[in-house]
């Protein structure tokens, strides 16, 4: 009954229209749109990856091996379970064109069945088998357009992989299973595996991966097939994947970055909340007489609360609806551009879950920010009708509980939707802390401005004194501006500080700590000559080399390694394994004993100390490592310090020489050289040993930097949504201040102030507020940047002044734009009219 009556009254109240709610609706709609938009793109990518699972994988299922081809038993099993099997071999190599044009490439050797699903797109548009067929005894090849351009090749040109010449038949525009490669250092080249037979690149001990793609008959249960294959071959180092989750790495990345961006979007919604709250307060302020009248006529506080809560609910629904429309519509409009710029298949459409997520955040945020003013104004006393004045006292306990409940619901929603409690809590904590810091900063600024307005130095500077007086005065402008602008700027400042610190860390540390080149696949009969060439080079400061094998840890103390180590990253794929007869100079043993020189007893292993501690390994534990299909059980006899952060050589496992030296293997070498010595060194080594692959560390780091830049850009876009919302709040605050500015300007004119002086005062006020918001953002961004660099990246932090300056200038510019945009009316109004209307 009460609710129905409240609804009737609310409906009548809303006849006034939505004019006073533009800021409310815009803030809410923008925040919801940003979240919905990110969610829709994420869903489109996830669905795309799932729908195209078989195409991405290159088959219905895949069995993979490291550094070996499948043996007869494995081949027989694959043939038995599938309608068709396609064999792929994948490795890094150097492309050589002429005498001295070289580049790193990721080679894919295929058979006649590739691709089992999807299409390879070439330019010119040839069938793949035709492109790869030998002409005059020289096998054909197709190569990524980027690499073709970098090497200056054209169709028909010859190039060399290892010691085998190939003819470029076409540029590779799209490989259907392209998203599967993960983080590749070199662009793709595709050849027939048969063409690689005499290249010297697939010798025993070289680093390569094989994959067997299976086309399965209809009705096969993938999970059953997986269990069967794993039971038979898991101990032989077989990796299984299938179309249910074709690109788990890409999916995980998209999921994580999507969650992060949504949480950044949530900070935008918090900014919008400031505007929503201000709009509701202003609306309720104008309703004091109505509320008091309702009280006079017998309405209880609860009825009043319901009346305005229902109005807020309707408006929130409208704002959220608008936001969902924008959030769903904009990605659809931008679909062609997004599809073109992503390496994944994207299936755009209307997905209810991201819309639901955005709606949830929007509605709960709207109520979090409006509950407080609603509860306060419901307590307006009837006496306000004849005595004036507004709200009385603090909201009751149940409103405190309701507010706490809403915040808990918001947090719980963020945890459920993001799937990461740490991410949700740290982002929410960050936003909350930023809001508190900004609110305190606004209070401090008001107090400071109030004091400064009375300083002697300000006397005679009327415009400045007026500006300071206005900031320190009773109006809420300072709080509104600093909260709304400060939060968006803080996120941007944090991104700016982290981004520039990462870049400078890379450029600062690279020359002193990281090697110039990694050389891989150095054969045993090549290592002596290889080292001799480096020894005589004055530009080379340091060389480290070690035997290199790859192996998968399958068992720890006889238990499944994944279960025993909490699925630690070390057991999640194959890892580099080396061996050494004596303790190398750079190996710092922190526990246990290195085996004696010439040791030939049961296998022993020295394990990386930090990873061992994370995995719960103890001295004396046994681990079983599958290397080239052979199980080697070794006892952990020492732990040693390994630094993976300097890009130098770091092996998780080092075994005694006797355990591994008989297995086919190659060497890896890191070379520290002056930049000027790099080019001749590469020319000599690659010329003498064509099968060796050189990875330039600078190029690899450039790729990492590119990836970081992309993440920073995406974050900046999401923060941009916060900033835009903040700007809307600023405009709202400026518009709400027009009336009091008109009054102020009228009085100042009466007292003899020129319009220029009044305008200067308004401009100073805006500039001071913008500077303050920017300054607080820089402090917040600096602190967050320092914390991320120090504790997450474990690197040094240095304050980055350029990005900080940009933030302050943006703050000043935004407030000036919003403030001065609403100065025309106060400046142009005739004083008499304004003052008469106020009487």
């Amino acid at each position: 009954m009460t609710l129905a009556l409240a609804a009737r009254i609310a409906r009548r109240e809303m006849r006034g229209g939505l004019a006073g709610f533009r800021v409310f609706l815009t803030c809410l709609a923008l925040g919801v749109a940003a979240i919905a938009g990110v969610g829709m793109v994420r869903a489109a990518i996830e669905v795309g990856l799932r729908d195209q699972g078989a195409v991405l994988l290159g088959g219905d299922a895949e069995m993979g091996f490291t550094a070996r081809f499948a043996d007869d038993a494995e081949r027989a099993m694959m043939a038995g379970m599938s309608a068709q099997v396609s064999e792929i071999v994948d490795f890094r190599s150097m492309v050589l064109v002429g005498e001295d044009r070289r580049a790193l490439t990721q080679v894919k050797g295929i058979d006649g069945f590739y691709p089992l699903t999807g299409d390879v797109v070439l330019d010119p548009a040839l069938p793949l088998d035709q492109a790869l067929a030998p002409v005059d005894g020289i096998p054909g090849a197709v190569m990524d357009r980027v690499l073709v351009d970098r090497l200056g090749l054209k169709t028909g040109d010859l190039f060399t992989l290892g010691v085998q010449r190939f003819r470029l038949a076409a540029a590779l525009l799209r490989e259907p299973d392209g998203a599967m490669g993960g983080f590749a250092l070199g662009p793709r080249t595709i050849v027939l595996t048969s063409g690689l037979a005499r290249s010297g690149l697939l010798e025993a001990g070289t680093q390569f991966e094989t994959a067997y793609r299976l086309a399965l008959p209809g009705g096969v249960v993938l999970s059953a097939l997986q269990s069967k294959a794993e039971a038979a071959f898991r101990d032989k180092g077989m990796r299984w994947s299938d179309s249910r989750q074709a690109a788990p790495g890409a999916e995980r990345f998209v999921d994580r970055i999507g969650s992060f961006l949504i949480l950044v979007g949530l900070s935008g919604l918090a900014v919008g909340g400031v505007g929503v709250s201000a709009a509701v307060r202003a609306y309720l302020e104008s309703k004091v007489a109505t509320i008091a009248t309702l009280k006079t006529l017998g309405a209880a506080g609860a009825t009043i609360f319901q009346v305005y809560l229902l109005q807020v609910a309707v408006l929130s629904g409208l704002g959220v609806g608008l936001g969902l429309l924008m959030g769903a519509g904009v990605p659809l409009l931008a679909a062609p551009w997004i599809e073109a710029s992503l390496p994944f298949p994207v299936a755009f459409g209307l997905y209810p879950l991201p819309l639901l997520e955005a709606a949830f955040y929007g509605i709960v945020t709207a109520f979090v920010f409006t509950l407080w003013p609603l509860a306060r104004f419901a307590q307006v006393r009837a006496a306000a009708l004849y005595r004036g004045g507004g709200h009385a006292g603090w909201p009751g306990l149940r409103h405190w509980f309701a507010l706490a409940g809403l915040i808990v619901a918001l947090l719980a929603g963020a945890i459920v939707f993001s799937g990461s409690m740490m991410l949700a809590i740290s982002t929410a904590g960050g936003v909350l802390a930023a809001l508190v810091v900004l609110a305190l900063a606004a209070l401090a600024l008001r107090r400071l401005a109030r004091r400064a307005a009375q300083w002697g130095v300000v006397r005679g500077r009327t415009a400045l004194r007026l500006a300071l007086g206005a900031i320190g005065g009773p109006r809420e402008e300072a709080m509104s501006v600093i909260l709304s602008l400060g939060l968006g700027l803080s996120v941007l400042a944090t991104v700016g500080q982290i981004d520039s610190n990462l870049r400078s860390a890379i450029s600062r540390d690279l020359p002193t700590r990281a090697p110039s080149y990694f050389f891989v696949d150095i054969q045993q009969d090549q290592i002596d000559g290889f080292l001799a060439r480096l020894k005589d080079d004055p530009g080379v400061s340091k060389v480290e080399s070690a035997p290199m094998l790859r192996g998968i840890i399958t068992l720890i103390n006889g238990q499944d390694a994944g279960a025993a180590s909490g699925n630690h990253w070390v057991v999640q794929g194959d890892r580099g394994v080396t061996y050494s007869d004596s303790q190398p100079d750079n190996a710092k043993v922190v526990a246990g004993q290195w085996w004696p020189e010439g040791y030939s007893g049961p296998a022993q292993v020295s394990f990386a100390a930090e990873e061992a501690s994370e995995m719960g390994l103890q001295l004396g534990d046994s681990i079983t490592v599958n290397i080239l299909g052979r199980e080697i059980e070794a006892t952990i006899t020492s732990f040693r310090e390994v630094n993976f952060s300097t890009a130098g050589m770091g092996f998780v496992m080092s075994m005694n020489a006797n355990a591994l030296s008989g297995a086919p293997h190659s060497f890896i070498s890191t070379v520290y050289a002056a930049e000027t010595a790099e080019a001749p060194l590469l020319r000599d080594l690659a010329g003498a040993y064509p099968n060796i692959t050189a990875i330039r560390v600078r190029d690899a780091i450039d790729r990492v930097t590119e990836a970081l830049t992309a993440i920073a850009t995406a974050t900046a876009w999401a923060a941009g949504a916060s900033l835009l919302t903040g700007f809307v709040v600023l405009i709202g605050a400026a518009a709400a201040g027009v009336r009091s500015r008109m009054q102020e300007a009228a009085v100042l004119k009466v007292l003899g102030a020129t319009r220029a002086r009044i305008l200067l005062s308004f401009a100073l006020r805006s500039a001071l507020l913008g500077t303050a918001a920017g300054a607080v953002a820089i402090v917040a961004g600096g602190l967050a940047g320092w914390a991320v660099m120090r504790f997450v990246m474990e690197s040094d932090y240095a304050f980055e002044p350029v990005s900080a300056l940009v933030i302050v200038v943006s703050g000043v510019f935004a407030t000036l734009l919003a403030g001065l945009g609403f100065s025309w009316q106060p400046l142009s109004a005739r004083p008499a009219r304004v003052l008469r209307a106020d009487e």
Partner: protein
Amino acid sequence: MTDTILALKDVALTLAGNAGMVEILRGVTLNIARGETVGLVGPSGSGKSSLLMLMGGLERATSGEITALGADLTAMNEDALARFRRGNMGVVFQSFHLIPTMTALENVALPMELAGVGDAFTRAEVELRTVGLAARMQHFPRQLSGGEQQRVALARAAAPRPAILLADEPTGNLDGANGAAIMDLLFGLRDQHEATLVLVTHAPELAARCDRVVRLADGRIAGEGMV
């Protein structure tokens, strides 16, 4: 023995002002009988309006006792006072205080809706006809003249048939002719519903229409008498 409907005993009201605490009313004791018409007069700032608001439970006394229809108003909180006013009290203000987003009919029906009266709108229509606004029922306050707005306010106050009508200078914002018409209506409604009327006014001719006049000065009752 008269039936007392409103009783004030040693009531004081002190409010915080810009220059500190201000004593608005000091020890007011007053009894009003059922059906009586009482005029509250006195100079500006003497506390007339504040006294009326205390009677309506719109203001909270600093000390003393206020009883209306046997209920102790000083013991009630804001919500209990609001519920008490439903059906028991009607208040008319100088500035009308109609709700701008509601039509004349809705404004009049509102207190009955709040009281849960089933035929609120039928009764509101009757009331509006009584005050001569049959043709203005669907008009919003901004579409009505000052006199018409005050008639709506009168209808709204009288519609729930309250036992007590409180009017705070109801003609203060109206010209002479409109003011006279409103007063005729107010007294007419009072007679029709046999309500108790307490009226704050500056106008001697209005005070003269009351059964009793209470004169306030400086927050105290300075004198009273039967007319």
